[in-house]
């Protein structure tokens, strides 16, 4: 690597892309999360999300054992703010519930009426 470990934090905050993790595995969910029921996970997430952003209305659609969480934002958030908001929310859930959590918004199907004749359903 070009940068020393001591410089990594500053690097992350102020510069380009941190290239330190090419060999690192993504974190898995812990036993506590895995052993929870789906309903318990959803409830835990919804409570944590309300604490994080009481003004934004978010539904938790699914919370899988492997940490993949599907949500639906019901409030309007500008495109410029939406991504950062969701990344902040994910950081919050990782730090307060389980580091293996990844959040994804509910998928949207194609709005093209012509292409929709194919009958393809976008899966989530």
């Amino acid at each position, binding site marked *: 690597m070009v940068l020393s470990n001591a410089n990594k934090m500053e690097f992350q905050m102020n510069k380009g892309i941190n290239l330190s993790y090419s060999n690192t595995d993504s974190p898995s969910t812990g036993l506590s999360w895995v052993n929870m029921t789906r309903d318990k996970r959803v409830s835990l997430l919804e409570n944590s999300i309300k604490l994080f952003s009481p003004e934004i209305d978010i539904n938790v659609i699914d919370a899988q054992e492997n940490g993949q969480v599907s949500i639906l934002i019901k409030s309007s958030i500008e495109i410029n703010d939406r991504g950062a908001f969701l990344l902040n929310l994910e950081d919050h859930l990782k730090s307060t519930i389980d580091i293996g959590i990844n959040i994804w918004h*509910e*998928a949207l199907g194609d709005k093209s009426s012509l292409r929709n004749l194919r009958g393809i359903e976008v899966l989530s």
Partner: protein
Amino acid sequence: MSDSVMTNDGELILDSHKLSHHMDRVNAWENGERIGPVTVDMSLTRACGAMCSFCYAMMQEPQERRGIKTDHILHLLDDFAEVGVKGVSLVSDGESTLSKSYVPFIQHAASLGINIGNATNGWEWGPEKSEQVLPHMSWIRFTVAAGTPERYAEIMYKGPEHTEVFDKAMKNIRHAVAYKKKHNLSVTLGIQMVLMPEFEDEIIPFAKLGVELGVDYAVIKHCSDDEYQTLGIDYSKYEAMYELLDQAEALSTSKTKIIVKWDKIKDKGKPSYKRFYGPAFLLQISGSGLVAPSGMFFNARYSKLHIGNFTNERFIDIFNSERYWRAMNYLASPSFDAQTMMGTLPIQHYVSTALDNHIKGTNKIQGANGKKPLHVNFL
């Protein structure tokens, strides 16, 4: 790179990358600098008159579609020039030839010294349009799903009886080939088949059609799918087609090269990399105006990676924002796993593989010497 084909116009690289010719950008990236993308892949609209059964755009619907006006795209190109974008491919998630901004976009890009390529079905690309853009283009690649009219119409449109779309495309491709020859243009003309296992019967007819049309190349590539296998691509079935693909390549002539994207076809849908470094070099923009690192992330599902929309904010401001670099860093972090959290074989696949191998030290990217290949600014 050895993964190239010699055409009458020069060395053509379709089954690899061209980072070796952009070492200034690679070195800056490795040194932690914020680099502008070498190439942007984008569309001027999400609309399309076709309904290809293999179309990834069916999985790319974002929250909002914004109308892209000519003012937007002229500013966008000015901003591209400012951040160092060298090539723009009009591919992405829509049929750009349908946009009123199509001709002005290409002409303005040319005036700025930005190279332009375009993938199109060619249906709305008659002489009155094509002749305005061909002199400014680096390449045009026509999507030709099959070599026979009925199968073409079945795969790309409403059914096998609608062969009028095939006829229209062939007429416009033939005109482009003749116009290039008459005016001695440098533009490379190709046709492309997106291979799903059920299109096996069309491999040889497609190759023969390419030769008959007299295009510079006819390429056969894999079909991408999302991580939920929405299109249901069974990558294990590609192997049974290797012999036919070899036979197709053997039909190459001195004028027309038949090219199979072996690297992606043999990849079987699972990348070697966990981190996704490619988008910093090859950025994608949706025909909805959405700026996201890759087309893999256009759907609302990946909203956390949606950076902005160039129709309500200048691209240069999006590029310089912390949002942009946070999204790029997310893809380089352990929070993101390219093997499980995105679709297969993105446009950044070759670049991402090479950058990952470079960072791991398993295969360092070496600067290239000698004559540049065709389309060097399209990574």
